[in-house]
């Protein structure tokens, strides 16, 4: 029933206090929000915190706070959800990396019933499939390191725009919304950021820039 409504209609239902509408809205943006968590969550927490847990907690936050959105609905709902999720990620970092209040795995360390768990995958076919040899893998990973360095050297808006477009897989208009830009400007900026990235990498690697 609710599932057939579009975003605007769902928002109206939500404003009228129909909470299941929030679940649907959240689900519709879930893939993007998950990628956001994956990109923004500190790698040190890998294995301790599943993106799905962060999303779950953020959903509860959103449920508590959605009336605020309607008090001052000055941005698209997706942008607001990103803020909520961003806040949750910041909390998670504070909790696990700064205060070290608890170690998530400690709770599991003993006496906790754990079934045979989902084991990690096998790299073999991955490497064999995409690369020619382990030495190829190493060379390729040097490229990756070079890319990370180049990303770090970009100015903040450029970097952010690339993260949004590529890592979070947002469309141009979504990226524009998040950054508060006009769509055409965001598009231009994206192309420019790509060009700058390439340029920095070329300079860093010592090959002449075209």
């Amino acid at each position, binding site marked *: 029933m609710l599932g057939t409504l579009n975003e605007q209609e769902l928002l109206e239902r939500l404003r009228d206090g129909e909470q299941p509408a929030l679940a649907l809205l959240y*689900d519709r943006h*879930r893939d993007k929000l998950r990628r956001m968590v*994956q*990109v923004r969550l500190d*790698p*040190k927490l*890998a*294995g301790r915190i*599943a*993106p*799905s847990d962060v*999303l779950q907690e953020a959903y509860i936050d959103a449920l508590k706070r959605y009336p605020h959105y309607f008090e001052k609905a000055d941005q698209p709902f997706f942008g607001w959800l990103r803020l909520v999720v961003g806040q949750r990620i910041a909390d998670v970092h504070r909790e696990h990396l700064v205060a070290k209040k608890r170690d998530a*795995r*400690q709770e*599991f*360390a*003993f*006496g906790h019933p*754990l*079934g*045979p*768990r*989902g*084991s*990690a*995958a*096998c*790299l*073999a*076919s*991955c*490497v*064999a499939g*995409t690369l020619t*040899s*382990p030495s190829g*893998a*190493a060379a390729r*990973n040097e*490229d*990756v*390191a070079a*890319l990370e360095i180049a990303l770090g050297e970009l100015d903040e808006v450029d970097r952010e725009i*690339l993260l949004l*477009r590529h*890592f979070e897989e947002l469309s*141009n*208009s*979504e990226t524009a919304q998040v950054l508060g830009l006009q769509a055409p400007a965001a*598009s231009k900026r*994206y*192309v*420019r950021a*790509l*060009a700058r*990235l*390439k340029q920095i990498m*070329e300079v860093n690697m*010592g090959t002449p820039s*075209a």
Partner: protein
Amino acid sequence: MIEKTKVQRVAEAPSTQAIAKSPLGRTPAVDTGERDPLDLIAEEFADLCRHGRKPSVKDFQRRYPQHAEELGGLLSAVGQMESLKRLRKPTSDILPLLEQMPQTIGDYKILREIGRGGMGIVYEAEQASLGRRVALKILPTAARSDPDKRERFLREAKAAARLHHTNIVPVFGVGEDGGVPYYVMQYIRGCGLDDIVHGWKNKTPSVVKPHNWTIIARLIARAADALDYAHREGVLHRDVKPANLLLDAEGHLWITDFGLAKLMDEHTLTATGHILGTFQYMAPEALAGKSDSRTDVYGLGMTLYEMLTGRMPYEETNPAALVKLIGASDPPSPRSVEPKVPRDLETICLKAIAREPSRRYSSAAVFAEDLRAYLVGRPISARRLSPFGRARLWCNRNPIVAGLSAAIVMTLALSTFFGWSMYLKTKQSLANENKQKLAVEEQRQEAIDRRNDAEQATRKYEENLALSLGAIEKILEIISDEEPMRPPPPGEGGPGGRGGLGGRLGGPPERLGPPKGPNGPANADREAKAMARASSDVKMLEEVLAFYEKFAQVNTGNPKLKFDAARAYRHVADIHYALDRPEQGKIAIETAVRMLEELRDVYDRDLVRKELEMIGDRGENRKRRGPPRPRE
């Protein structure tokens, strides 16, 4: 130039028509109206990457000739961003989160989700008909959609279900429900060995204490027994690691997830980002998609390593660095990480995790046997490697050398070298130019920066060159060894106790003949092989020699390189002698000596002196051993 791109050009650029051509038939968000045409092309390219395709930059350039120039750089950046994304993802959910927890699957009532990972989702469930608690695993979506893969999953799971062993988590059943393949295992209350090791770090009390060598050896021995049983049944595990070894509340060890790793393919993997967790424990040959029972031995050896030292073999969280590390080096020896580790256990562990399958325990049973020998205080069968053995392994393992022929390495070294000398020239002219042009104060800083860059690049070239030279030297050492690599005969142990490199190379040619021992047809065969090897080695050596000669010619000014060339002549002389060519050996020695004499005043005196002494010693040795015995 990119900024100049006009919005009007949208009409001729990709937009709808190009996107319709996209094999995915997916239309990206439709806000194309006011976007940079390059943005749209980049989006199309990224979209293909995200769907596991490998779009070619050249194809795109051909399709959009008006943008060909810009696209070259932009699209490669897009491709790199997309692959970086996959590498970066620390953890991720393989199933869309929208997927609701099913109420029932087949005969099983789902109670709760226990975990999810690259291999799918595990639920705690109740088997309605028997009222027993089970763990139920369903496959990741990616694997589900492919009928081939589903069939393979069922086949593998059935194979695993045939296993009955006290240390293997029993698989109760395999099935398919509405197209979702699942399998059902006994529900184990306990934790993985990874949790235990992690607990040590946090000082969490645990049944297995760190440094409890006896318990650790016993647990690993049990796991080895279970693996051996499975291997004899024709089932490989393929993903042995601490997380797949469970310890229940009674301290009983269980191996879980037999054979499932095989089901993972490139697509699932890149989609899951679970590479890191497993890569640590994966045997080198598995990287090439080959595995046998010794691959499981390796995984278990790595698990032992972690139990002994309390840390992962490679402590590196950056995936890029990790891949590089595993490709290039061994983990530090257990005792260097944790000096309390008993020597024998370290030896056992190192044998189990040898890079080359042939150097590992030939089966899990032999591995278990050695652990038991340790437990009862009997001598273990594993031997430590001699320095020579390590040198040879270094070469085999060196990622540059591995998989490449020596000739390729040489080409590499040469091109590095020429690249470097060209670079030096360019740098010089650049510096001159700068001197003339950049008189203005603020431009001087730029010149300094540029020079710093250039110096850095020079250093890098020099390092690469040193690496190549090192690689070639190792090749020399290998091909001058008398026997092809083969596993030690059972019970005889490894190559421990062999002489050092210097002695063997300087030795008389009998080393190339049959080894001492009982004579027989096997020996004749071996000798024939040695001969064949020798002739190919000679060819290789001549190439090496040519390389060094060229090297020495081109570089008359650099004493370091000249010194390297002199050393090469010494190696060459050794090999000539080893191959019964004393005349050529003598010439090479003389060349080496002459070069060293010339270097005496311009290069590190100690090094030169040592090198000359070494040549002298070799000569003495040869004289002592008498004239070479003619080969039959």
